Each structure stands twice: as structure tokens, then as C-alpha cells.
């Protein structure tokens, strides 16, 4: 690869990283906390591209340019550019959740769950509901209405879940947290539809056939479609 072409590839890559990290698009791939580092990396890539062009032009003028091509594999750096700018896939959803066991086991039992936040219904994350329902046997949710937001996914046997993917670092380690929905009709809702469920604690519990981990249920009063949140991962 010629140096001019390298500069263009680096410029494209830096630009793609900057565009992804300056909009909310980066949230589909990595955690929020990585944003400043992504911006810094994008700026550095653009700077390397500019410096490469600068020295290339200067050496041309000085007429002692000796071409020193880099290997062909460098061209592959265009693949993430295409992925980020042209394909820009959405966040992982039901397809990934259906083939992965619920990840509740990653969170150790806490001895003590703080009271739910104020409000009726109380707005809490799916992971928070699932751990309170399983590890605390619903004690800290008893007598309260909660509102959970997630997308619809289904087990092989047709059980309908309200699901949220959680990330530790990037989408390669994304794992679902599933909560079964009972009491409200879910028939009209296709997989991947974002919904908000208002309901109360249910003692029903099933095991995820994939990894035998526990899946709690929510006794739903209402279920309504909502728009996908900006931050689709919890």
C-alpha cells in the first residue's frame, strides 16, 4: 500500500471512529465510559493521517521519496470503516438473546437491597428487578408497582420474555437478562419490539434451558410499545 493510500485509509478510519463516538451510535457497540478514549483515538488517527500526507508531500518536493509499501493486510482497515459508516448495524436484540442464557448468575447475591426508588410505578432496570426477584425473593419489591423497559424475546417453547442486553465492555460480551411476562397479552408483539411493562412481583420462576439459570417473572398490569431507548444496553 502506498503512503498516500495509507493516509486516506487512516483518515477514513479516524473519521469513522469520530463520527461514531460524537453521535450516540457508539452506544450500540461499547460502554458509555469508552467515549472520551474513542474520541482521542479518532483524533490521533486523523493526526497520523495528516502527518503522513505532510511528510509525503514534503519528501516528494525534496525528491528523495523512497516508497516503502506496507503489507496488503492493511487494506482490511477499510472493513471497520464500511461497517461503521455504511452498514452501521443496530444494537444486539432478540436473535442474540435467544441463543444465550440469561446472565443473572454474574451478579452475586447482595445481603441487603435498598428500597425501590420513589414513584408509582417505580422505574427500575431489568437487571435490578431480576436480582431483587431472585436473590431477595421479591421482598424489596413487595407491595410496589414497577415499570421495566426492554424488548420482547421468546424461548423455544414460546415463553415470552422482557429482555435487556447487558454489556461489560463491548457487544462481544453482551449477555441477556430475561424476565418472564405473565398476566398481559403479548400475542401481538413481535420479537425485538420495545415495550414498557408496569406490574408487580410474581413468585413464578423458570429455568433458562440454555444454562439452567433462574428467570423471574413479573405480573404485568399493562404492557405498551415504546420507542427504543438511546442506550439499548443496560
Amino acid at each position, binding site marked *: 500500500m502506498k503512503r498516500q493510500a495509507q493516509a486516506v485509509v487512516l483518515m477514513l478510519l479516524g473519521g469513522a471512529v469520530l463520527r461514531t463516538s460524537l453521535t450516540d451510535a457508539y452506544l450500540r457497540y461499547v460502554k458509555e465510559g469508552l467515549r472520551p478514549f474513542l474520541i482521542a483515538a479518532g483524533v490521533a488517527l486523523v493526526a497520523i493521517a495528516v502527518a*503522513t500526507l505532510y511528510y509525503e508531500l514534503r519528501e516528494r518536493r525534496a525528491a528523495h521519496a523512497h516508497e516503502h509499501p506496507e503489507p496488503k493486510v*492493511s487494506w482490511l482497515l477499510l472493513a471497520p470503516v464500511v461497517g461503521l459508516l*455504511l452498514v452501521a*448495524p443496530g*444494537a444486539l436484540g432478540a436473535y442474540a438473546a435467544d441463543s444465550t442464557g440469561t446472565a443473572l*448468575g*454474574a451478579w452475586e447475591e447482595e445481603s441487603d437491597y435498598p428500597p425501590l426508588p420513589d414513584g408509582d410505578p417505580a422505574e427500575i432496570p431489568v437487571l435490578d428487578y431480576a436480582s431483587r426477584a431472585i436473590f431477595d425473593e421479591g421482598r424489596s419489591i413487595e407491595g410496589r408497582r414497577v415499570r421495566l423497559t426492554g424488548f420482547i424475546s421468546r424461548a423455544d417453547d414460546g415463553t415470552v420474555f422482557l429482555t435487556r442486553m447487558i454489556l461489560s465492555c*463491548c457487544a462481544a460480551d453482551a449477555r441477556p437478562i430475561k424476565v418472564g411476562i405473565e398476566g398481559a397479552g403479548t400475542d401481538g408483539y413481535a420479537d425485538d419490539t420495545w415495550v414498557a411493562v408496569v406490574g408487580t412481583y410474581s413468585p413464578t420462576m423458570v429455568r433458562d434451558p440454555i444454562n439452567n439459570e433462574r428467570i423471574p417473572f413479573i405480573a404485568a398490569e399493562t404492557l405498551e410499545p415504546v420507542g427504543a431507548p438511546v442506550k439499548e444496553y443496560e
Partner: protein
Amino acid sequence: MLVDAETETGPGAPETVHRRRDRLPFGGLEVLAAGLIVILVARPWLTDALAAPWLQRWTVVFVSVIVQALPFLVFGVVLSAVIAVFVPPSFFARVLPRNDALAVPVAGAAGAVLPGCECASVPVAGAFIRRGVTPAAALAFLLSAPAINPIVLISTAVAFPGRPDFVAARFGASLLAAVVMGWLWLRLGRADWLKPPARPHTEGDSKAAAFWASCRHDIMHAGGFLVVGGAAAATLNAVVPERWITAVADRPVLSVVVLALLAVVLSICSEADAFVAASLTQFSLTARLAFLVVGPMVDIKLVAMQTGVFGKSFAARFAPATFVVAVASAAIVGTVVL
């Protein structure tokens, strides 16, 4: 002052390149421009073609592995350019013990101060070798840095609350494996397995020019291979069903090997792998320790990057040996401590 193998191959090499290129009516830049136009025109069709759920999942995982790794890779590349241009070789001669066998554990322990993951340590270790550090010590650093730095240890402690012994086991087993690999290289390693450190032409250039050339060169090399590794990890991530893995969880020896292989396949960043290990609750702690010791030292994207920086004949020997040593180290430390 910057002397390397390539400058000594003489002025003939660049000229042959020129002659070959003169025969072509167009260069890479024109192909690149044409390709971009084709992609832009085909974009609506491309989006449709990639709408299948499994392809969507593949693309998300592929893009996210690379997005996650890039800041660390860029950091490592810039740091290695600083080392290559501004830190004189005499510095390393001063801080590392003269005795190679002693330099290995010192360099391994020094890995604790590079806050990053495996993507940063590959270019930095490459820079160490170019600056005259004995390869065995640089390789011990390469293996230990992504596993025992403070960020990784803290995230391990967060993922395994109330288990400081597990964090200590990760530190101990990783450092042990890194140092053993360094010593193995001293005894068995051959210099000709390592590809002569490729370097851009920098003789006669200013320090600034050398710095930017080093950045560009390292990104083009390691970055291309990072893409190869990201694609392989995304593929395996999508095709290995979790059901197969959980089926072996209750067989103690097999489960250690399976989780070690899973670490190779998944290529998760070492700053995040502890959370994945924590979620593999069906497995014994020793098996999960193997996952965390092997992952930062041998995984698909890392082997691809090592191939790019150190050469094929190096990676083909070094990666399998590291895998065996890391599994053994995790099994021993896990059995004793956990």
C-alpha cells in the same frame, strides 16, 4: 542513530518496488477511490443484504471488537513510537538486570504498570525488542501486561466481589505463566523465528518525522491483523452455541480445557473478561481462572496481531506453547489457592 536490518539491505529494495509499480497504470489510491464509489452507490442494496439476523449479529460483534480495541491499540502505538524515538536504548540497559534470566521476571512484573489490554502491549513489546531489550524479557512483558495491570485487577475484583483470593490467583497465575514463557524462550527460542523488526525508513529524518512514521507503520501492521482477528472472533462467537459449552461444565479437567479454548475463541478484551467469567457460574473457579489467564495471553485477534508484528514462524510456535503453559499455571495456582 536509528539503524535497522532494512537500511542495511541497501538501496536496491525500494527501487524494485518502484519498477514494479511503474508497470501498473493505476495505484492503490485509484482502486480505493473506485471501491468507495461502488460501495456508496450500492449502499441501499448492501443494507438489505446485511439485514439477516445472523449477519447483523456478526457485524455488530465484529465492529464492536474493533471499536473496543482501537483506543488501546492507538495508545499502544503512540507509546511504542515514543519508546522507539525518544527513549534511548541505554535506558533499558540501565533499568533491566544485565543477566537475561533475571531480566525476565523484572520485565514480567513491569507489566503491572501498563494500563491497557492486549492490543496495547503488542506494539509496545515490539518497540522494546527494537530498542535492544532481550526478546525473552520483552515477551514476558507482552504476556503479563494485559493480565496484571491495575485496571484488569480492579475489574476482576468488581466481577468477583468478596473473593480477593481469586484476584490474587489471577495475578499469580498470569505472572507465573509469563515468566515461565520468558525463560522457555531463553532456553529454546531462536532469534531467526522472530521476523527482523520491520521499521519505516527514518534515517536522516527529524525526530518528529520518525515519530509519525512509527505511528503510521505500527497502525497499518497491527491494525490490519486486528481486523482479521475481530472477524474470526465474531464468526466463532456467532457459531459456537452456548449449549455445547455448558454440557461439559461438571467435568473438572475437561471444563478447564474448554474454558481455556473459549477464551482463545472469544477474544474478549482483558479489561472485560472477568465479567464474562463471572457469568459462567456453572463452571468451577479453577476453570474460570484458566479462562482469565489464557485470554489475555492467547486469543485469536492477539495471535493475528503477533503474526503481523513478530512474524508467522514466531506466532506458530509461541501461541501454542503459551496456551499450554498458561493452562498449566492456572490449573496449579487454582488447585493450590482456590
